[in-house]
């Protein structure tokens, strides 16, 4: 018999049976599902006011190797066009106006990543690496993660470490940086990043689980944006200048709960607190509701709220007499909040010929960035406000 997707009742009974001593599942014990997985996803990202548009094409494949290993590979192509903010200027009345990059950029990012996970009886060990290339940016990274099951697999400890090495080589310009009292220029600069994760996930009861992670990140090198400028009323436009190091901490808690009475719907709630030594603190709340309907249909509404306060060295522009060692007017370092909401539909077919599962998904999400949405503040000014929508469509096949 082909291993078809089982009715949840059968799965529950089998799971209870497998707890009986001496019972093994037909010589395929181990955690790896012996299925091949193929995914394709298309995404369309579009900002309002004719700013950035991105088309995303992504393919992912994963395959079992032997009984206890899974290998995966992931390919992404982003096709990017449009303009992005470069600097802000204040007029005589003190109103701030944003200036976008003049020419419309069209470029492409290609990324490849792959990973290998080895499953032990009560632990898993994974390794991965990737490479991403744009005409002005190259990134390479490696990562490793381990998980250990404790307490009858009710508790899982997770550890992760990753490192990235990026090279920035702006097209048609040089990177300008301060050098003592003067500026120096270079064709390319680099930065390195590392991130460490410590986490625990815990089954609370038969309907809920919680996961909590702490991550620590450290970045060093050229952390500024070579395309951004900063307007000084006294001196005119200066390059974006940021500290050469950044320490980041994030604490994430995810809670997932099952609701039998709503046709096995699932509630996902994520809360993340973030802080870094550039002075940015942020809160993120992400909620989604996964509602199975019938015949493999599922509808998934989602809501997210994000708020951050500004980096210490951020200002929309620098006024008369203002001096600074490091300074940026990048909207991503400003004080702001963002509300987003979306809905996704998913339809799953089981047992089609040799495929054990075929799943189609399509979703839309709208994201609204506003300085006034900032938590307990009124942001850095509404000149930065923007919104985008993100369309996604994907197909997943298991065989």
């Amino acid at each position, binding site marked *: *018999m082909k291993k078809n997707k089982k*009715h949840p009742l059968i799965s529950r009974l089998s799971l209870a049976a497998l*707890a009986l001593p*001496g*019972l093994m599942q037909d010589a395929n014990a181990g955690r790896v599902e012996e299925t091949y997985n193929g995914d394709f996803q298309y995404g369309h990202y579009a900002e309002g006011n004719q700013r950035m548009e991105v088309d995303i094409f992504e393919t992912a494949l994963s395959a079992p190797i032997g009984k206890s290993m899974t290998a995966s590979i992931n390919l992404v192509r982003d096709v990017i066009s449009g303009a992005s903010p470069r600097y802000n200027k204040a007029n005589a009345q003190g109103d701030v106006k944003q200036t976008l990059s003049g020419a419309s950029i069209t470029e492409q990012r290609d990324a490849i990543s792959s990973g290998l996970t080895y499953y032990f009886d009560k632990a898993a060990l994974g390794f991965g690496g990737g490479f991403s290339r744009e005409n002005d940016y190259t990134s390479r990274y490696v990562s490793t993660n381990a998980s250990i099951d404790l307490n009858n697999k009710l508790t899982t400890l997770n550890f992760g470490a990753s490192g990235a090495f990026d090279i920035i080589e702006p097209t048609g310009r040089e990177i300008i940086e301060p050098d003592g009292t003067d500026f120096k220029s270079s064709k390319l600069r680099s930065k390195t990043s590392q991130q460490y994760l410590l986490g625990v996930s815990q089954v609370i009861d038969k309907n809920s689980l919680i996961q909590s992670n702490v991550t620590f990140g450290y970045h060093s090198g050229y952390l500024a944006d070579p395309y951004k400028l900063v307007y000084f009323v006294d001196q005119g436009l200066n390059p974006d200048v940021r500290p050469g190091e950044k320490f980041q901490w994030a604490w994430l808690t995810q809670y997932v709960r099952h609701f039998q009475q709503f046709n096995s719907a699932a509630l996902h709630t994520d809360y993340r607190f973030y802080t870094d030594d550039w002075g940015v603190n942020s809160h993120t709340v992400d909620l989604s509701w996964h509602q199975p309907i019938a015949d493999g249909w599922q509808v998934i509404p989602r809501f997210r709220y994000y708020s951050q306060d500004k980096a210490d060295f951020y200002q929309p522009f620098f006024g008369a007499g203002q001096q600074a060692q490091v300074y940026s007017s990048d909207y991503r370092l400003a004080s702001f909040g963002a509300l987003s909401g979306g809905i996704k539909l998913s339809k799953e077919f089981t047992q089609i010929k040799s495929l054990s599962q075929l799943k189609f998904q399509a979703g839309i999400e709208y994201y609204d960035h506003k300085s006034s949405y900032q938590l307990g503040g009124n942001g850095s000014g509404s000149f930065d406000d923007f919104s985008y929508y993100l369309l996604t469509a994907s197909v997943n096949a298991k065989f």
Partner: protein
Amino acid sequence: MLTVFNFAFKAMGSPCHLQFYAASAQQANGVYAAVVARITQLEQRYSRYRADSLISRINGAAGTGVKTAIDAETFALLQYSEQCYQESEHLFDVTSGVLRGLWHGGQTQLPTTADIHALLPRIGWEKVQWSRADIYLPLVGMELDFGGIVKEYAADVAASLCQQHGIHSGIIELGGDVRIIGPMPNGRGWPVAIRDPRHPTKTVAQFELKSGALASSGDYERFQLIDGVRYGHILNPKTGWPVAGLRAVSIVADQCVVAGSLATIAMLKANAGLGWLQTLHVAFLCCKNNGQLINSLKMGVK
């Protein structure tokens, strides 16, 4: 060179067969001895008919205020019983065995409603107090009976034991419940037949099983005829009466214990059993009370 070995024996009150391919008679006999020892151990621990069994000690302590210590295996069986209870709208209840006192073989008259009502309070899985360490039946006369679980579980255990002993081709049958150890050396499944519940010499279905298990439940094994009506041994814990609706149900599942409990739950659901099985998308063969056969095995079986 692999040779097929055949062993017939009696265990858990039923005729049993173990058939497998092994490299030598010495290996085969070793495996057979290990299987029989394991099954005997299960029988000693869980048989209601043995005064020294764990089950008899648990039942003997019912209502006395004394808890009986249990081991991990018994705990897992209790967990499994709990799961069956939950999945069956409380129809699959391992405390319903007390009813057999009224429906034992050999009686010629129906029990009275008063008899049944007197017994019903002693039934109820939710009354049982159990933990990882011990179990207690709070009412005098309550009984625990793993009869609907242990035989099938034993088939699963025996199959894993054979696999651990290096047997990769084989089949074990304990009183009609079958578990595959592994396909035949040529890769084909083992031929399995299901008998007609009313005419044991006739088969109603025949197919090959490569992996997994086949278990059945029905009114054919033990029953009484009272005034020409056939009363089976599958008793509804809520009404105290034998169930009527289906004659027999056979199920194919990965584990024999799961196949067995699904079959029993389907029987307990009586007229609703067939519809329930159909929603589960399991491979089954169901014989309705009017003799009509519903066979979903062809689509599901290997």
